[in-house]
């Protein structure tokens, strides 16, 4: 196995035992990146990363203690700010923008000597489910380059799935980590809202956005979450709760646990091949002693409508700051201020972003607030209650991550509503604020991964990781890599 295909956990051991150098890991990754163009990265920090690797290797030579994160190359979604590095959010409007600050997760990872390899491609401002909405062109699915990797964290996920990164940070608003993780066959976790600081994550929908880890193994996923989770005084919505040692506490007895199977997630629209695989996974968990319980999340059918109203309303406001005054793109010719702003935004934003700004602006505008945004906020309350009630009976909820496998590039781009509907299983946990993890199942003969989604109670990431870890041990899933 090439170094770029190893887990962070194994690479750390190899670094500690001086079997390999940090430089070797990095070169292995860079080789993979250059030999196979998936368009996963927008910016690569090649030279700097090599220097940083050199520094880590010196550290190893001197016999200094290494943290589990030291020198393990990490890819960062391009909506998370790293000081002095371009942050484009996959948008033309942020052309040449370099934040003079680090996101709080980046500060934490810098303290742990993590090595940043580059910024990954994404749907513009994280709006999309296919990664086709990037100003920097679509990312390709490593399992089938004619297919989408999913979105919006498509670049991060494709990089991890193809050995172009050991692990990566993504962001998830309505499924942007989990759905691509499902499409590309990697582990992706959306933490509880507030578990990870949002400071420095370019906002899409503030009440839903969360940064989360993407990795090839559950243990790596746990390790990365451990590094980024925790209270941050710069984010008023971050939770002030201790962070468990997720990565060292992964073993758990599955016998006697109760899993909820929500009937609303197994209806119309679910691809039969996906359903078959999920049912089989349920069967295997049952064999391992987990008790399945059919449950109902009765407001599921309203989740997409609720989500798209709330997310676009917040987005229309969050994206008002891109006006060509203080940073980013400014149109070339204009007569006055109004025209400068309107043309800058018209030329700087892509189609999907404009569509969502339009929808969100409309939903908040005079006379429509109550009918749209107000209603959606109340519907959100009902969706949260569904989960509260379900968790009175079960330890976790199990669903497909996405209704289909990865679809073809261009297949849904002309029909925004169809594209939105592909988020059907991921938006409910986002609206409820609860954690959810996508785990890759055994790859079927067609070679396209399928993801299993575990949804947990608020702040029960630990339990989700333990269950996923048990599944990994039981080999009902596949960590194989597309090379």
């Amino acid at each position: 196995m090439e170094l770029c295909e190893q887990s962070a956990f194994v690479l750390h051991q190899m670094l500690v035992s001086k079997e390999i150098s940090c430089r070797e890991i990095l070169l292995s990754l860079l080789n993979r990146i250059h030999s196979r163009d998936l368009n996963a990265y927008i910016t690569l920090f090649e030279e700097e990363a090599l220097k940083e690797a050199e520094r880590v290797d010196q550290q190893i030579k001197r016999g200094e203690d290494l943290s589990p994160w030291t020198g393990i190359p990490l890819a960062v979604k391009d909506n998370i700010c790293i000081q002095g590095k371009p942050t484009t959010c996959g948008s033309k409007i942020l052309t040449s923008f370099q934040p003079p600050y680090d996101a709080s997760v980046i500060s934490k990872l810098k303290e742990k000597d993590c090595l940043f390899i580059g910024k990954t491609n994404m749907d513009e401002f994280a709006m999309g489910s296919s990664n086709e909405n990037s100003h920097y062109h679509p990312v390709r699915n490593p399992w089938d380059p004619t297919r989408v990797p999913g979105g919006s964290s498509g670049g991060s996920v494709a990089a991890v799935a193809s050995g172009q990164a050991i692990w990566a940070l993504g962001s998830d608003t309505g499924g942007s980590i989990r759905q691509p993780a499902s499409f590309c066959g990697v582990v992706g976790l959306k933490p509880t809202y507030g578990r990870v600081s949002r400071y420095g994550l370019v906002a899409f929908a503030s009440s839903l956005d969360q940064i989360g880890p993407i990795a090839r193994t559950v243990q790596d996923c746990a390790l990365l979450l451990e590094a980024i989770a925790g209270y941050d005084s710069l984010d008023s919505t971050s939770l002030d709760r201790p962070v468990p040692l997720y990565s060292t506490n992964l073993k758990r007895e599955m016998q006697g646990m109760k899993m909820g199977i929500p009937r609303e997630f197994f209806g119309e629209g679910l691809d039969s091949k996906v359903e078959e695989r999920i049912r089989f996974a349920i069967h295997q968990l049952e064999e391992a002693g987990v008790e399945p319980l059919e449950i109902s999340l009765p407001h599921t059918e309203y989740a997409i409508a609720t989500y798209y109203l709330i997310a676009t309303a917040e987005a229309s406001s969050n994206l008002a700051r891109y006006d060509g005054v203080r940073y980013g793109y400014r149109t070339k010719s204009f007569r006055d201020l109004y025209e400068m702003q309107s043309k800058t935004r018209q030329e700087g934003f892509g189609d999907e972003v404009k569509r969502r700004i339009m929808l969100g602006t409309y939903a908040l505008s005079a006379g429509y607030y109550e009918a749209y945004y107000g209603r959606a906020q109340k519907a959100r309350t009902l969706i949260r209650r569904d989960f509260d009630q379900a968790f009175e009976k079960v330890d976790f909820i199990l669903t497909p991550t996405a209704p289909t496998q990865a679809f073809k590039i261009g297949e849904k781009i002309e029909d925004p509503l169809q594209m939105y509907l592909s988020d059907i299983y991921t938006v409910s946990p986002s609206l409820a604020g609860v954690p959810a993890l996508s785990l890759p199942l055994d790859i079927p003969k067609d070679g396209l991964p399928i993801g299993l989604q575990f949804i947990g109670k608020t702040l029960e990431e630990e339990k989700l990781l333990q269950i996923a870890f048990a599944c990994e041990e039981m080999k009902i899933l596949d960590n194989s890599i597309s090379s």
Partner: protein
Amino acid sequence: MEIITEEEVRHVARLARLALSEEEVKKFQRQLEKILEYVAKLRELNLEGVEPTTHVIPVVNRLREDRGKESLSKEEALSNAPNTEKGHFRVPKVIE
């Protein structure tokens, strides 16, 4: 009857400062119409007495002390700006 007219699309575009082309106005009208038709589902719900959710977390009173933090240097503050002059951000004139 249409939920959203082309004229409304133009109005919303002005509110959102998007200089949409006429083609885009037509396209967005069609697409938004479809999306709004779909989200009208929410009207089926009985939401009487249901509290809106603004935050999913039970956190209140996150306050900071009135203590100073270092500001950016003027150079840093202006470094990303498309047009600056004399330590200011420059913007075109406002024609009302």
